[in-house]
């Protein structure tokens, strides 16, 4: 019987940096297509390393990564992934609209202008469409970053702490948009420090520490497993274990 490939499959993934730091060690993870998956862990746990490895921004030391059944460095896999990084990394020479159009161009899109205008409108950037990225406010840059990640209609969207440092209103707005995206069938991989965010949004949560997977389950499952009432307590217990 036909079985859909997982959105993301990591097998025995390891990354050791040149200075000897082991960021990931024998990491296995499978995220089903259509899932809203949360990745939780303290700073230095390996979350961003994992994401960078999936998105071909990092050379892995060992292991395999596949995206919807394709090797992660294949053109098919690259086209399937949309990434919004933790730090704002917008091209300083491009306007908001150009940022989206050029990104779409890099990803081989045809309907660039119409899609860029659609994203500009969806993220409320109409009045800033011809403004260069450095002149946007922090919230506008964050919105543009997310719009860029979604521009080429990826099947797997990776959001690395998308709401870090943003105000309540923007966070709520981003949540609303991400939820709608998920409801339309997009697989979401979210890393966050906000436990309530993970609980609010994610179907399943993985806890990682020191480059290793500690636990993985639904929020309820994790609470049961660690015999506590709150996700915060799960986190504290998991990180202390």
């Amino acid at each position, binding site marked *: 019987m036909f079985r859909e490939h997982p959105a993301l499959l990591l097998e025995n993934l390891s990354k050791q940096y040149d200075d000897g730091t082991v960021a990931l060690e024998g990491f296995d993870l499978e995220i089903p297509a259509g899932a809203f998956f949360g990745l939780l862990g303290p700073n230095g746990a390996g979350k961003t390393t994992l994401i960078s490895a999936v998105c071909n921004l990092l050379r892995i030391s060992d292991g395999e990564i596949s995206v919807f059944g394709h090797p992660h460095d294949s053109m098919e896999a690259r086209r399937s992934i949309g990434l919004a990084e933790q730090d704002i990394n917008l*091209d*300083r020479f491009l306007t908001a609209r150009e940022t989206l159009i050029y990104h779409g161009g890099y990803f081989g899109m045809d309907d660039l202008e119409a899609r860029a205008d659609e994203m500009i409108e969806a993220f409320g950037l109409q009045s800033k469409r011809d403004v260069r990225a450095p002149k946007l406010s922090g919230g506008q840059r964050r919105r543009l970053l997310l719009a860029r990640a979604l521009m080429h209609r990826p099947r797997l969207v990776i959001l690395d702490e998308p709401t870090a440092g943003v105000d309540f209103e923007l966070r709520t707005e981003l949540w609303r948009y991400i939820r709608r995206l998920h409801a339309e069938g997009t697989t979401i991989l979210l890393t966050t420090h906000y436990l309530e965010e993970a609980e609010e949004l994610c179907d399943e949560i993985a806890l990682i520490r020191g480059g290793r997977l500690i636990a993985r389950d639904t929020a309820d499952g994790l609470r049961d497993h660690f015999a506590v009432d709150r996700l915060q307590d799960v986190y504290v217990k998991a990180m202390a274990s």
Partner: protein
Amino acid sequence: MSGLVWLCKRETLRVSKLWTQTVLAPVISSILFILVFGLSLGGRIQGVSDVDYEIFIVPGLITMGMVQAAYANNASSIFQARFDRYIHDVLSAPMRPWQITLGYTVGGIFRALAIGVSLLVLSVLLVDVPIERPFALVAAVSLGLVLFSALGVVAGIYAEVWDHTTFIANIVILPLAFVGGVFYSVEVLPSPWEELSHFNPVFYLVNAVRFGFLGESDVSVWLSLGVTAALALPVYAWSQWLFTTGKRLKD
């Protein structure tokens, strides 16, 4: 191929948006050399091989302006993209390493050609510089721009701070250009300086371009083109290797 086209567009757009810095400033700087050393002082300087001095210096000045721009453009573009991490948008895109290498190289070539063509037009108007061997000129410029654009890509990838890119421009390329026969024929140099000049790669490029303009040069044009090609190919391969392996980009 779409990704390559858009990366080329992005790199040329950057040059266009900053045209006063990327094109106008180097053109003014080179034209000042022609005005000061050529037209003002040229009358007091004996011509070289029956060529008026103000005409003799034009090929070297155009070469110097172009190679500096090709290098500086790509070194700064890649360094900024790495520093601000927006290079991730390119590295994660469905583009092959050869497309990324070529896309970034094109930016430097575009800027250098904008400067070169501007200087050529002004030089024709000011001193009526001839183009005796156009095919040799095209070959020399093409090889020279591939060499210095690729060198800019490599420097932009290896640089850890901004000073590293300017160090190569100011301490390596500029002095080599100055002693590479831009302002004089190396035949007038006493030994061992004449012989030492033959170890300067920019000397061969300047001579190949001068041959294209004036139909004569200090050394055989084939030797000049051969040396420039022998440098351009491995440096371009080096930049390609960096994008293929991810060395320095994905560490």
